[in-house]
């Protein structure tokens, strides 16, 4: 008998007024009982609309039925057939525009909490299952993977299982990509990402940190080193600025810098070596997940007031619903239809304010979203001491600048076949944000997996 409640079983969370002062995880996860109760809301529809909404086609009704039966290990096994990072995806996927959007239960009431259930199964497995890896026999061929974000990790994970010797080249001193330097601890505990990486290491993947491809090695040099194919999963890490006056004042950060200091360099800890400015009044410009993470980090560092300044309306916010909801609960103030035009500073060059104009929504633009236009006479100043710019990132030019035969488009994204990740250069495949521009974890992961398959076919075809 399905559970016909119109609402999802609530997930226990830290109280907003407590959690906005710490960096511990916000959502605490379902207990076994809660998971079974929520799993019973699934109608196990014959046509399985949810699966079509999942970029990697997780067998959703199947794993949820298994949870409902209390078969948690089997549920986990079902998920990882197509998703190698369920503990991550259960936490950060935009389920409301993917699987849960298609859920029949969502027509009247809330959809089944697919993301929470995925997280439950993954967390349960981490706690209860002893991971053993069968070592596939090695086939003697080497593949290089550039970048250790979700695309690189999933590509490496599949290739090692196929018998390749896989080396990941990572520019930073720690592997994980955005999962470690961007997404904060309170949303995605770093210990969890490390477990996924440890799993790859246990299977024989080699991770070489401090290796900046384009500098330490070029792609051509990787081939000279004996790699038969290369996968580029270098992400989109180059921060965009607004090109407004005052952007170089002291107290203006890119979201990347702000979050890297906090997450990768642990600047939120009081005794960390790497410093961060703890602003008292902070404006974050932008409306995506990155902006939410920056704002919620700023409040946790002790800010009294944190604004999200976004030039469109609430409806257009690209961030995950849950993050917007959490940000509001934690006291973040949203300034919609507001666009910064200048950053003001004092005589010593420190930020004192953000000058903005109000916007109205005009005609829809190419993306179908209504284009904001300036409202006459609406100029005003937000008094802040810190401004964090979070208006998007582009792929880093280091690789394309040193690989002349690698085709890129006008935004600097690598041109690659959607199905296989094949680039314009023989033996070189690419996927994730480096190809699509800033997107999602699940898409990057899917691209890594697709490329692993194509790399296998490519190497076999060469004999």
């Amino acid at each position, binding site marked *: 008998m399905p559970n016909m409640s119109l609402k999802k079983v609530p997930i226990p969370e830290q109280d907003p007024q407590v959690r906005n002062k710490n960096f511990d995880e916000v959502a605490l996860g379902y207990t076994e009982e809660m998971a079974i109760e929520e799993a019973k809301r699934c109608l196990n529809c014959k046509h399985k609309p949810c699966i079509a909404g999942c970029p990697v086609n997780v067998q959703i009704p199947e794993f949820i039925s298994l949870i409902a039966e209390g078969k948690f290990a089997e549920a986990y096994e079902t998920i990882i057939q197509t998703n190698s990072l369920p503990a991550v995806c259960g936490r950060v996927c935009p389920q409301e525009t993917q699987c849960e959007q298609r859920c029949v239960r969502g027509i009247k009431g809330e959809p089944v909490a697919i993301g929470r259930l995925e997280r439950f199964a993954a967390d349960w497995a981490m706690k209860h299952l002893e991971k053993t890896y069968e070592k596939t026999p090695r086939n003697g061929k080497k593949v290089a993977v550039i970048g250790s974000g979700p695309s690189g990790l999933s590509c490496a994970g599949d290739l090692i299982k196929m018998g390749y010797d896989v080396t990941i080249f990572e520019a930073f001193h720690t592997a994980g990509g955005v999962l470690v330097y961007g997404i904060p601890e309170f949303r995605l505990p770093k210990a969890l990402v490390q477990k996924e990486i440890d799993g790859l290491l246990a299977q024989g993947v080699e991770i070489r940190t401090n290796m900046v491809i384009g500098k330490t090695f070029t792609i051509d040099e990787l081939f000279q080193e004996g790699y038969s194919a290369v996968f580029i999963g270098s992400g989109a890490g180059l921060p965009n600025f607004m090109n407004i006056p005052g952007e*170089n004042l002291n107290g203006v950060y*890119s979201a990347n810098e702000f979050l890297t200091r906090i997450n990768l360099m642990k600047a939120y800890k009081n005794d960390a070596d790497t410093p961060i400015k703890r602003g008292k009044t902070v404006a974050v410009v932008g409306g995506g997940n990155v902006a939410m993470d920056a704002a919620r980090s700023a409040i946790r560092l002790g800010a009294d007031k944190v604004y999200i300044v976004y030039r469109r309306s609430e409806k257009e916010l690209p961030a995950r619903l849950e993050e917007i909801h959490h940000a509001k609960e934690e006291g973040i103030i949203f300034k919609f239809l507001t666009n910064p035009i200048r950053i003001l500073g004092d005589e010593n060059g420190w930020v004192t304010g953000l000058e903005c104009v109000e916007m109205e929504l005009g005609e829809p633009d190419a993306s179908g979203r209504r284009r904001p236009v300036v409202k006459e006479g609406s100029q005003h100043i937000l008094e802040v001491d810190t401004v964090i710019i979070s208006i998007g990132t582009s792929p880093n030019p280091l690789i394309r600048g040193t690989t002349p035969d690698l085709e890129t488009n006008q935004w600097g994204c690598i041109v690659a076949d959607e199905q296989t990740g094949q680039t314009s250069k023989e033996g070189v495949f690419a996927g994730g944000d480096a190809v699509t521009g800033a997107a999602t974890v699940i898409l990057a992961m899917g691209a890594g997996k697709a490329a692993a398959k194509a790399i296998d076919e490519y190497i076999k075809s060469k004999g």
Partner: protein
Amino acid sequence: MYKIVRKEVLNAQVKLLEIEAPFVARKAEPGQFIILRAYDEGERIPLTIADYDREKGTVTIIFQEVGASTRLLGSLNVGDSLADFCGPLGVASHFEGVKKAAIIGGGLGTAIAYPQAKKLHSMGVDVDVITGFRNKDLIILEKEMAAVSNRLIVTTDDGSNGTKGFVSDILKKLIDEGNTYDVVVAIGPPIMMKVVSDVTRPYGIKTIVSLNPIMIDGTGMCGGCRVTVGGKIKFACVDGPDFDGHQVDFNELIRRLSIYKDHERAAQERHQCRLEGKINA
């Protein structure tokens, strides 16, 4: 990995470490830098590649102990290893077509300028080197610079080594005496680079400066190292660190270098204990 194979104390605050880093040594060029972490959890410290030996697979760094992280680095010894050593980063210096150059090193900047002098010298360029220090106890790399220059002038602010004056005044004198230069390379504290750029501007001499803003990744992903050059934002770690001194907004650079003053003071005090623990051990 990243083992220290040689350590030298150049003056009370400046130390030299030669480090095993074959992948960096293989590609290093003058003008480039590395980022290291002395230990896990440590800060990422950008330092110029002062020298490299491709055959031995080593890279030499020379650094001044200005704060907590560099002092900790200075407390390490031969046989110790660094946690991380990443590079070579930044764009290598280019000197095509140069016949006569003046290299100006201010204090520790002398160490950063050394590989450029060496390179120019090896290209057969006529190199004048002017290095300046606050007093004679702080003089570094005198022998090394002498070996890669046609003329070396070492000056001190207080005249304690017999030659008194700022490097910029000496450069101006040389120019006024009729010396001509295709390029001036000025490396040192931002204020010194600014003054040298002001000296060369009226003569229209191309002036290259090496900017050391605060960096984290060194690969262009944070923008913390941004500087204004010719009115445009540049990321010093990937577009530089060498820039045209006549185009650089030095005041902004100086201001941005002071962002973490308070934190740095606190870190110094905290590290003092850790450091003393180390020294006593």
